[in-house]
């Protein structure tokens, strides 16, 4: 039973990874690419690691997979946030179809 749950989790995770990378290629500017790829790939990889934990059980590989999932869940949003802030500060323009830029408005008001 745990094997079936694990394989199901790994399948969903791999599909999330694939869709995130398709978004990384298809979307128009860096901010769209960043939000699509980071969210999908973080969730997908965490689901793969949780599936490995379900299959392997509490053992030497399962505990390491759980540790790695917690680490990725903590650090991936931090890296994406720092990167988007750096891109905005470096002056990367938004896509033409973007309608609002709150960060630039906040800088203008200060």
């Amino acid at each position, binding site marked *: 039973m745990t094997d079936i749950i694990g394989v199901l989790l790994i399948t969903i995770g791999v599909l999330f990874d694939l869709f*995130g990378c398709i978004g*990384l290629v298809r979307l128009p500017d860096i901010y769209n*690419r960043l939000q699509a790829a980071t969210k999908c790939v973080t969730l997908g*990889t965490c689901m793969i690691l949780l599936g*490995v934990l379900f299959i392997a059980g509490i053992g030497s590989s399962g505990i390491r*997979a759980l540790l790695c999932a917690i*680490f990725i869940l903590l650090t991936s949003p931090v*890296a994406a946030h*720092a*990167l988007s802030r750096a891109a905005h500060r470096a002056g990367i323009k938004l896509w033409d179809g973007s309608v609002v830029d709150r960060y630039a408005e906040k800088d203008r008001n200060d």
Partner: protein
Amino acid sequence: MMYMMDSVWPSIFMLILLFSGFLCLYRIARGPTAPDRTVAIDILGTLMVGFCAILTWVTGKDYYMNIGITWALLSFIGTIALAKYLEGRDFDD
């Protein structure tokens, strides 16, 4: 632990992950600006952690997970360092 040496599913999962990695490599090669390339490098590192997890599942060896943990840590540190480097203004202005 279930060893899946005789099943075809782990090969399909690994092929899908490799295809996703090639999409990331396309973005690294093509990306118009430096932050695009940095995002693609970060995503490629996270994908490879998943690849190491699937290798752990298929082979039953637990040291592949060590490679995954190390890769996640180095990818995080590298992305933060590149973001800090990119945040400075250009040399022109």
